[in-house]
């Protein structure tokens, strides 16, 4: 997934200057801005996804969780470890599995980390949902304009 992101970013960077355009000044500005909006958005999503997936070097992170959740081999194996809430929850789980005990202290620790991870997700999940709806709206109005 990450590779796809970086590929996308490279493509955008290549295209980020406009082909010659002979319109009035304001229209040119508008087009350049719309392009700029896309570049800025791509960068923002890139850093959001990096936040969720953690730095590229850390590949072991989330595999433990998929081991724990046997029946659900989540495709997100490398998507969900991070230095922040994501990583903390993972580290707590790692400790629990390593000791292979069900000491209530350990379990409590994991539960606390999972809770804060949940809160963190709750805080940000609305953003991409809202943006996704908004982006679709943008595309629809764009296509409508072109068809009229």
């Amino acid at each position, binding site marked *: *997934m990450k590779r796809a*992101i970086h590929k*996308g970013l490279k*493509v*955008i960077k290549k*295209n980020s200057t*406009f*082909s010659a*355009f002979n319109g009035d000044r*304001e*229209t040119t*500005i*508008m*087009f350049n*801005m*719309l392009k700029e*909006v*896309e570049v*800025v*958005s*791509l960068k*923002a*999503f890139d850093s*959001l996804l*990096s*936040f*969720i997936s953690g730095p590229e070097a850390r590949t072991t992170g989330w595999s433990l*969780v998929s081991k*724990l*959740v046997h029946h659900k081999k*989540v495709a*997100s194996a490398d*998507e969900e470890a991070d230095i*922040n809430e994501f990583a903390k*929850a993972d580290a707590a789980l790692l400790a629990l599995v390593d000791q292979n005990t*069900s000491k209530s202290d350990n*379990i409590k620790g*994991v*539960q606390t980390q*999972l809770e804060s*991870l*949940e809160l*963190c*997700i709750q*805080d*940000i999940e609305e*953003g*991409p*949902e809202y*943006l*996704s709806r*908004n*982006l*679709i709206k*943008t*595309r629809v*109005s*764009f296509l409508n*304009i*072109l068809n009229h």
Partner: protein
Amino acid sequence: MASSSNQKTGFHARSNSFPSRLNPAITQLDEHLRRSRASEGACTSSSLGGKLSSLQDLHDCVNKLLFLPLNQQAIAQENNGKLIEELLDGSLQVLDLCNTAKDALLQTKESVHELQSILRRRGCV
């Protein structure tokens, strides 16, 4: 001497990047763009919320811009076809990334819930 100063002023006028009388929606978009650019860089859990909300404002602004008849006319002009194509391609990429982020968050949330119920059950035994 006189001619060189003339050239200078001529150049200066041309390099003036913004016409004084711009559509307010465009000025607003520029403002949002500047704000979003300012919050670029790696995310931390505390900066994430602000970053996402400035992105939302930015895209609200784009939609407002597309509602203005004057801009619709500009977009509809046939000689802009290539630019429009580029923009549409780009918007598809952004939408794609946005959905990836949405799905990743959703999956993580589900995994967290599953783990929580596993731990609860274990705790009871």
